[in-house]
């Protein structure tokens, strides 16, 4: 499949590097989720995460570790962009804010995993290939929309009411980020009335054009 066939080609370009023995389940799930997002759009990520986590027994620690991996990606992406993107003061301030928020999500999720008796996943190495402000903004939009879909998709599987409440506090902030980035891209901040994952039938329908 060439990149031109991808719904979101910039996602396919994100490299997650890890030695085989270091490759955690969350890394693998994230790779799959990003691949699904690249081909089918961010909305396809929810069901993918749901299935992947369900198959591996997941649990709240698994869900939190997956979220942590996604937040590592976003935190790194914005932290790096601070020195890489050359843009106006308004956008640079937004990048600062997003970097700070995502880093706080990383710290809170890692602390939560530990409190539940789990081991926080290690941060993978990322390689973001984009060029210019427009390339950055396009990828940022995909990450934020994907983040919203991933949290919303995993939310109903969270067992602990407290973890669910905390995840809700994070997903709303991801949605706010998504809206702000979309406005920077001159796109509708809330393109649909429901930020929900596609069901399986709809995913299959979306997949068909890409199956050779």
């Amino acid at each position, binding site marked *: 499949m060439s990149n031109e066939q991808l719904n979101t080609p910039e996602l396919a370009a994100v490299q997650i590097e890890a030695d085989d023995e270091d490759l955690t389940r969350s890394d693998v799930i994230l790779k799959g989720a990003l691949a699904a997002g690249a081909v089918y759009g961010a909305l396809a990520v929810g069901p993918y995460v749901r299935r992947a986590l369900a198959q591996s027994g997941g649990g709240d620690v698994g869900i939190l570790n997956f979220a942590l991996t996604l937040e590592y990606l976003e935190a790194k992406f914005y932290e790096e962009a601070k020195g890489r993107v050359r843009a106006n003061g308004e956008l640079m301030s937004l990048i600062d804010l997003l970097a700070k928020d995502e880093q706080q999500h990383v710290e809170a999720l890692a602390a939560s995993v530990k409190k539940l008796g789990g081991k926080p996943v290690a941060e993978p190495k990322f390689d973001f290939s984009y060029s210019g402000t427009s390339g950055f903004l396009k990828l940022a939009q995909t990450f934020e929309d994907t983040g919203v879909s991933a949290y919303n998709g995993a*939310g109903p599987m969270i067992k602990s*009411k407290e973890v669910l409440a905390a995840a809700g506090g994070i997903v709303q902030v991801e949605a706010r980020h998504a809206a702000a980035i979309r*406005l920077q891209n001159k796109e509708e901040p809330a393109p649909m*009335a429901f*930020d929900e994952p596609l069901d399986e039938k709809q995913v299959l329908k979306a997949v068909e054009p890409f199956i050779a």
Partner: protein
Amino acid sequence: MADPKQLARQPVSRRRFLAVGGGSAGLAAFLAACGDDSSTTMTDTTSMGSGGASETAEFGKGDVGILNYALTLEYLETAFYAEVVKSGLFKGADLETIRKFGQEEAEHVKALTAAVKGMGGKPAPEPKTEFPLDNAKSVLELAATVENLGAAAYLGRAANIKSPEVLASALAIHSVEGRHAAALNTLRGESITPDGAFAKPADVKTVLKAVEPFIVG
């Protein structure tokens, strides 16, 4: 995808939620995990779950009560945007944004009504509303207040929802309210994340008190 019944057909694994209304020991344990007493951590979820499902008892039992509470707020938002569109205070791109948000709130009304009926409940009646529409600036401020409040209201009740299908629908709406709030905050030159990295929930009492001035019958 507006139909929650369609969501209900998805193979969401059934699971048991913790009993609503209690769990404060578990909450304390979780919050202690955050290891940071600053106001921008997950400790902001302290007001979660304090009243359990009974907080929305006046709107119905359990999930139906929560859905009807949300429906009442969505009715209010829909009526508000409809009046703003009619007011002639906005033109061009801003008007389109307002129109679009209003359409989305109307879709939320439809979906929540269907969800209440799907659970065998009686949808809450549409309240009669009245909003001060003096000028564009004050209307934008009111819109931002209403959206930020709406997002906080969903967040305040989401963890009390028992049905995974209802929860999936509520989450799908909650993040859209968050998007609306951030967009309106941006239009006003305000922070997109006024609560910091973790959005704060609002309890039912606070929300109902805040919208009271706009409900006339």
